[in-house]
């Protein structure tokens, strides 16, 4: 059972465009985490959102946690080629388990 639905699965855009990636679930999580994975490497944490309705900004990246703590979004403003990578959302509960979405493969073209 896929608990976290991530969309879109693939996204190819031009440099300078904006984009949003969505992560949805029918379950409540203690926190929602966003990771970025580059080819040949392990995922690296970008941000953790904990409180319903929380918004966090990391330079051109804006992360939002839904009020009911079941969904999250990642918005990138003015994408750059360096943003290319696999973006993974993951839901955490107090059971040592991170449940990952299937990822969004982002390609930013020059």
């Amino acid at each position, binding site marked *: 059972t896929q608990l976290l639905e991530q969309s879109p699965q693939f996204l190819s855009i031009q440099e300078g465009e904006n984009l949003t990636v969505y992560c949805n679930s029918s379950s409540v999580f203690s926190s929602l985490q966003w990771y970025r994975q580059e080819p040949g490497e392990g995922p690296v944490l970008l941000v*953790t959102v904990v409180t319903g309705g929380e918004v966090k900004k990391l330079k051109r990246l804006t992360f939002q946690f839904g009020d009911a703590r079941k969904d999250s979004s990642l918005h990138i403003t003015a994408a750059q080629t360096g943003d290319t990578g696999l973006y*993974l959302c993951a839901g955490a509960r107090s059971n040592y388990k991170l449940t990952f979405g299937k*990822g969004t493969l982002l390609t930013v073209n020059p």
Partner: protein
Amino acid sequence: DTAVSQTPKYLVTQMGNDKSIKCEQNLGHDTMYWYKQDSKKFLKIMFSYNNKELIINETVPNRFSPKSPDKAHLNLHINSLELGDSAVYFCASSQEGGTGVETQYFGPGTRLLVL
């Protein structure tokens, strides 16, 4: 100053063989994990250890046996390798576990190909 390291990085082997993957973290973390990432990039938890004790065994075939000799190491031994075991295996660690907000630090992955 590598935080989470895994060896080997690449592993190519024949079906039926037994192989081990090693993981070490120098972050002083209490909890370590093994994940499997399939060809479609889906990352799934396999095992979790906290202070050398098994916490999570996520319905993994018993051909897979993790071993934690100490808090800094979590190794994965796989018996009778099958074609479907081909994947990238990631080790991770976190300062604590079970809080729901802990940050996990991932190793670089071991690319296993079973022929």
